[in-house]
């Protein structure tokens, strides 16, 4: 394992540690308002949990993706991503597939965040809503809700 991989693993550990602290704080300070019913309490609680899980997954996936894209020890990062995704699956968080060249319909739009892209401009109107490159997959929970949206470059039609 080279120094950069060691550093990446250290970042992942620190990220988990850092975000865990914020999650516990958010749970501790969760306040139920007088006019909330059970559904509202559940929704608000889930929002907090999802927000913090989303932050943890985002940071970790980003660090691993950087490794997969730019370093020699790609296999380590791929294996790390598999382990991480398997762990998430065991607690009910799973990924769904999105692919390069896919035309995104309204249902999938809500699961993907387009990223700023320097070379995505096009005059071809047929490329509207087409994925140019997938950066990360959407992470979902049981009732088809995204905990973390996927990231992709889309063609930007001028």
């Amino acid at each position, binding site marked *: 394992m080279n120094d950069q991989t060691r550093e990446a693993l250290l970042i992942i550990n620190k990220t988990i540690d850092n975000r865990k602290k*914020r999650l516990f*704080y958010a749970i501790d300070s969760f306040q139920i308002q007088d006019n909330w019913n059970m559904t509202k309490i559940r929704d608000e609680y889930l929002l907090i949990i999802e927000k913090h899980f989303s932050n943890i997954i985002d940071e970790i996936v980003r660090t691993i993706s950087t490794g997969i894209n*730019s370093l020699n020890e790609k296999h380590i990062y791929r294996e790390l991503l598999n382990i991480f995704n398997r762990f998430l699956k065991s607690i009910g968080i799973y990924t769904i597939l999105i692919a390069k060249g896919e035309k995104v319909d309204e249902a999938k739009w809500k699961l993907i965040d*387009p*990223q*700023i892209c*320097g070379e995505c401009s096009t005059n071809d109107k047929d490329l*509207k809503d087409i994925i140019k490159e997938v950066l990360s997959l959407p992470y979902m929970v049981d009732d088809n809700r995204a905990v973390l949206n996927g990231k992709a470059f889309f063609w*930007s039609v*001028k």
Partner: protein
Amino acid sequence: MNDELLIGIDFGTSTIFVSKYDFEKKDAVQVENMGAYGRSNIFDNVIYIEGDKKYIIGETKRFLTDPLNYFHDIKRHVTNDNKRWRVPNLNNREVTAKDISEMIFFKIKEKIESNFGGKKISGAVITVPYAYSDKYRKRIKESAERAGIPVIQLVEEPVAAAISFGIFNDEVQNNKKENIVVFDLGGGTFDLTVFQFEKSDKQHAKIEVLNTGGHQELGGKDIDKLLSERFRKEFLQLEFSDITNDQERAEVQLGLLELANDTKEELTHSNDSDVFKSVTVNSQRTLIEKNFIRTEFEELLKRNNFIGKIEESLQTAIDESGLEVSEIDRVVLAGGSSAIPIIKRTIRDFFGFEPEAKKNLGELVGHGAGILAGLSKDKSLHYEIIRKTSKSVGISLGNKFQPILRKNSRYGEISSSYLINIENLKDADELVIYFYEGDSVKIDQCERIGKATIKTGEFSAQRVYLSLYRDEKSGELFFKFYKDNNKKEIIVSKKIESLD
């Protein structure tokens, strides 16, 4: 029981919040599932135009994939006559900010009515910033009406906040006059309102606005920028322009702003924040790692005069209200950024007591608007609201602004008369006078908001006297010409004409 659909719309610069009046509870409740994909109640004031009458509101992500059909910050451009956009998805039709506001209101109406099983909106109260001009108010009302929303009235944001706070706060005693300050520090603007409040019960209250102030460009976003700059200087030690790859630069800028926002939120509740983020700059990984303590954050705000601007605005607002600081009974917080401890402390040190926050700060204004909507039909509510003009209105004398209706004149109060000499108009058929609104003595720093056109045949004298006033309920501007200075004989009295 009346089951009309009466709505309050807080049409903010950054976000929108909608409430509905509940006749049984005699209170306004939030309308849920209004944002993109039905998840958020407070949603971003942005729109994506898919085609004619096909709009998506509250979703910011389209900005990156289809920027020419995506619009944000529309509220800031509503009064700008020169700002127009061609919309590809509308066959390159040219639209103004007023047109886009109409589309946003159209979608709001469609969503609300769909949420309530197709029931039509009977009426709506829409909020406007206190300091925004007459031109803005007219245009925003027309936009909503053209979208099919019957507008009961427009209400100033702090007045709505005052209603929401005062009526439902059991700590505000019945039959006791209180001087209250609404301190509203939002994402982009800072509004201060001083008003007098008295209620006999939840159905009977009187609210009199004494003064308004604040800062048009001061808010939470400025704090995020300050923090983000601090992280950039301390950890990256380079300018953003030094990052050669466009995507990398954008990611770093956005990443630092998100980190700043997270840090600000954590320091609002904790004494320190473990700041941690890895960013890639020019293909090199850089770690931002620091235990940031609250005092350091507060020093940053002080050093950059953020706190100074708040203190100055408070002093000016109280001075102009005619009250002493010691006469203020309560300070009510509104706007998400008001919860930051140093802001609260600044307010406490200024007034000598703690400010209060009773509701979700982002919902206070929309909640008040919903109550006002109910007031129009629920005859058991009796609220008297005395509003005052937020900026002087007058005419131009060369390069100078001559105020006639002065700031803080009550709605309904007719101004002192101003002498106009019409000797030189002998040969003209009509007299046209333009009206301006502002706080400056220079006319180019005031906004032209309307005009009066009078047939010269209506004047028999060489000198006439002009007065202005705002309608007590609608706030619309009217003018009166008198034959004499005693305002006994009216020559003509009309609503000021729009410039549109």
